[in-house]
């Protein structure tokens, strides 16, 4: 394992100190509770947004804390959900009296830990709503399973709901928007290489020199299918077909698109992929109204990418364009 770290046990805390130091104007870091908070919070009267999850997906979530997006992000160990006491502390710290929305990615651990954290807060009279994001079309959905994973749509939900909270929407409205975003967002990922959890010390899986995994998760979970490496054109066609037919997206739809690198994919490849995606959407009469191309929800140093499409109405576009000021997303300010 080759990593730029000191002790594997200290990776998360040292990175938290780093992000706090680099963005001292925006963020406050609670090292004890491994939580990143808006420096200017709590904002009285504003619905507060909290997300969190295992570390190793940077900039998610800590990079999305700030004006117009999250109020706090709880960081777990690498690829391990944070614990209920973190969510409890964060919820109390950011509550400005208008309630707190927990944006939770659908992984058993995240869901249960957030649930326990919310229960602790609700017991003390804080209004907490939780929305679980489950947008990964690589996983079959079913009532009897853990269901679909939460991936790229999380980033879009955090932006849009953050803007809604900022303009004064109440907790129910922000939570409903979050559910709507989740309902209309779909994602899928793939990998060329595995990643290595620092504490594990070796790659989570092995791929041959000519193999790729399709339908990969963001924690180095193997995908649904291993196959021979194909051209970017074929891969994007395959993945967008899975995404487009799932909602389904239709001619005339406007979408927000996220072409996301898993951490080890060069930006030149992501733009090449965006070109393929854009052509497919155009051919289907789907307009990419807004887009992000870059590393937004990563898996450490994994090479690979994911595509997220969100069917967006005019209100969502307005919320998308609203000012945001976080380490990873910034505009309008």
């Amino acid at each position, binding site marked *: 394992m080759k990593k730029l770290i000191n002790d594997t046990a200290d990776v998360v805390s040292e990175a938290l100190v780093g992000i706090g130091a680099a963005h001292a104007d925006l963020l406050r870091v609670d090292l004890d509770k491994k939580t990143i908070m808006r420096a200017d919070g709590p904002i009285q009267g504003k619905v507060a947004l909290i997300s969190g999850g295992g570390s190793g997906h940077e900039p998610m979530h800590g990079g999305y804390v700030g004006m117009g997006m999250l109020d706090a992000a709880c960081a*777990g160990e690498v690829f391990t959900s944070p614990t209920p*006491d973190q969510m409890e502390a964060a919820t109390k710290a950011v509550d400005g009296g208008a309630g707190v929305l927990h944006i939770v990615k659908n992984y*058993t651990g995240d869901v249960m830990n957030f649930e326990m954290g919310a229960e602790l807060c609700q017991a003390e009279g804080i209004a907490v709503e939780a929305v679980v994001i489950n947008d990964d079309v690589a996983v079959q959905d079913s009532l009897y399973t853990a269901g679909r*994973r939460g991936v790229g749509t999380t980033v879009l939900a955090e932006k849009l709901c953050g803007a809604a909270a900022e303009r004064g929407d109440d907790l129910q409205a922000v939570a409903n928007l979050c559910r709507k975003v989740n309902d209309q967002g779909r994602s899928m990922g793939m990998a060329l290489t595995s990643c290595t959890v620092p504490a*594990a010390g070796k790659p989570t899986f092995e791929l041959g020199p000519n193999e790729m995994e399709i339908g990969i998760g963001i924690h180095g979970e193997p995908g*649904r299918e291993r196959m021979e490496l194909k051209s970017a054109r074929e891969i994007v066609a395959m993945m967008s077909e899975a995404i487009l037919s799932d909602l389904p997206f239709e001619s005339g739809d406007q979408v927000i698109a996220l072409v996301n690198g898993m951490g080890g994919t060069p930006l030149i490849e992501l733009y090449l992929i965006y070109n393929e995606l854009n052509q497919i959407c155009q051919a289907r009469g789907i307009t990419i109204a807004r887009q992000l191309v870059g590393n937004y929800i990563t898996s450490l140093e994994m090479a690979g990418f994911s595509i997220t499409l969100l069917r967006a109405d005019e209100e969502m576009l307005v919320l998308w364009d609203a000012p945001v000021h976080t380490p990873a997303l910034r505009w309008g300010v």
Partner: protein
Amino acid sequence: MISIENLLTWLIALQTTYLENKQYLTDLDAAIGDADHGINMERGFTAVKQKIEATDHNDVGSLLKITAMTLISTVGGASGPLYGTFFLRASTACARKTTLTNAELVNMFDVGLQGVVQRGKARLADKTMIDALTPALEAMTQALENGASLTNILQAGTDAAEHGMQQTIPMLAKKGRASYLGERSIGHQDPGATSSYLMLKTALDVWGNEET
């Protein structure tokens, strides 16, 4: 009769167990999960060991509650809330006790397991830790009813857990991270079922000689 000292010995031995099996559990998790189960368990029980060695204990319930809260706040992931809930429920079944009879011990495990089921909403054959814990509880209850010794009760539970753990290999995962793999989850042993088996195995190892 299980004393507080016996319980302490077990909880501390669990730290050794998960330290020794850290790589093994993590490798199992790498195959169908995210390669951290051994790391999670070791981190949790190392914290438990530090916590419970730092103070005196005279109440089984509060000892188990400390264990639960420590697991909940240090493990994270799926196993943190699940094992945390296991010990939290177990602690309520042992409130203000200083010793446990065999029946109380089996009841403690049973109440704990119910907590895991409620929290995780997994069913038998979903390929999770309850596929080890459920047969273990059945075997222990049976042994208890047959008037077996503590060693034999734990031996029955451990054997059943081991068998249940092995039975997870051909299962298609329906809960937890392995469920994302669909068919590809078949053929791999569930890491959580394995850590549950090890929990019982450790109890057998540390208590098996000290007859009640």
